[in-house]
């Protein structure tokens, strides 16, 4: 005789990911490692933003980078060329990073870090659903993508704390309104901090890096 048994679960399907993310956040709080998760469409300039951000910070902080890509070590090589430790996570087709991938890769890093940057797989949909234990989620939007992106990919903008509009040097040739992009994003997430930067000219980079330092200080006040 068999019976049908109903088991009430009511649990988040991604609870395993969330569990690992929580464990990571605790470990990073312990080691005072400020962790930034960069999310954007492919080609928005995540690696390029890091190439301009890291030289500003690297003299004073110990920095590491996790590079998420479907294939190749190219992005990690670009970071290593700056003299910053980088671990490439190749997902082999998976469209986002998950907390357990991050944990595995982070454990390969040699030193204790003050900043860990995680460059997610270029994708504005899937990465938004996966908590990596980060302190700060940054969404990038490049001028060449169009200012209506926030409305099309709301979850990425809703779950971020910072919006960085990149490739601002293209503003004069593109039909992109910073104000429209900002308003569209703020309508989805009113708490967003917005930066407008150009890695090419360096415009906006100081405000962005000062913000990162300030956020780290707020999270880990000096004892």
């Amino acid at each position, binding site marked *: 005789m068999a019976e*049908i048994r*109903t088991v009430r*679960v009511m*649990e*988040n399907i991604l609870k395993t990911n969330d569990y690992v993310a929580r464990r990571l956040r605790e470990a990073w709080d312990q080691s005072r490692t400020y962790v930034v998760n960069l999310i954007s469409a492919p080609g928005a300039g995540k690696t390029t933003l890091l190439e301009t951000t890291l030289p500003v910070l690297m003299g004073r902080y110990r920095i590491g980078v996790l590079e998420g890509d479907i294939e190749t070590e190219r992005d990690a090589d670009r970071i290593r060329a700056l003299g910053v430790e980088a671990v490439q996570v190749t997902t082999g087709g998976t469209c986002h990073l998950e907390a357990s991938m991050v944990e595995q890769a982070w454990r390969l890093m040699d030193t204790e870090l003050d900043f860990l940057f995680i460059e997610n797989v270029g994708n504005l949909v899937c990465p938004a*659903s996966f908590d990596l234990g980060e302190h700060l989620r940054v969404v990038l939007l490049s001028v060449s993508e169009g200012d209506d992106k926030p*409305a099309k990919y709301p979850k990425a903008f809703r779950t971020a704390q910072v919006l960085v509009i990149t490739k601002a040097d293209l503003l004069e040739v593109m039909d992109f309104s910073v104000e429209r992009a900002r308003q569209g994003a703020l309508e989805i997430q009113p708490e967003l901090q917005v930066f407008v930067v150009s890695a090419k000219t360096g415009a906006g980079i100081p405000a962005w890096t000062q913000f990162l330092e300030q956020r780290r200080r707020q999270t880990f006040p000096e004892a």
Partner: protein
Amino acid sequence: MHELSIMQALVDAVEAIVQEHGAQRVVRLVVEVGEMSNVIPMYLRNAFLAFREVKPFLAQAELEIHFVPLRLQCEACGVEFQPQGYRYRCIECGATRVRVVQGEELLLRNVELEVESGNPGVQPFGSSAVREFSNSGIRG
């Protein structure tokens, strides 16, 4: 295509429940998918069908998906509303600070198992995370 990863997580969770209860097979899975969960129900269903072919305990299982529309509440005036498209501004007072009432869910609501009568199942440590809800009287 992250629906495949999400289904993998779901199948893992269900497999643990099957073992805990010493069940023969799964009859039905009931999940809640919020409008803002970034999950497309049809893709989730396709991923489920793929897993059903390789996981014997799911061979005859059904997947029931409850879609949960997005509902917001204005933090300024308190009105609850369903946003039109992706404009989250309050429909009454125009304020932009809103709280999500529902629509971000990605939940395994319950699992129906076929269990040999009298089998209490293995109760691992800390199994209170999975609470037994009812023994329905259906017998086969």
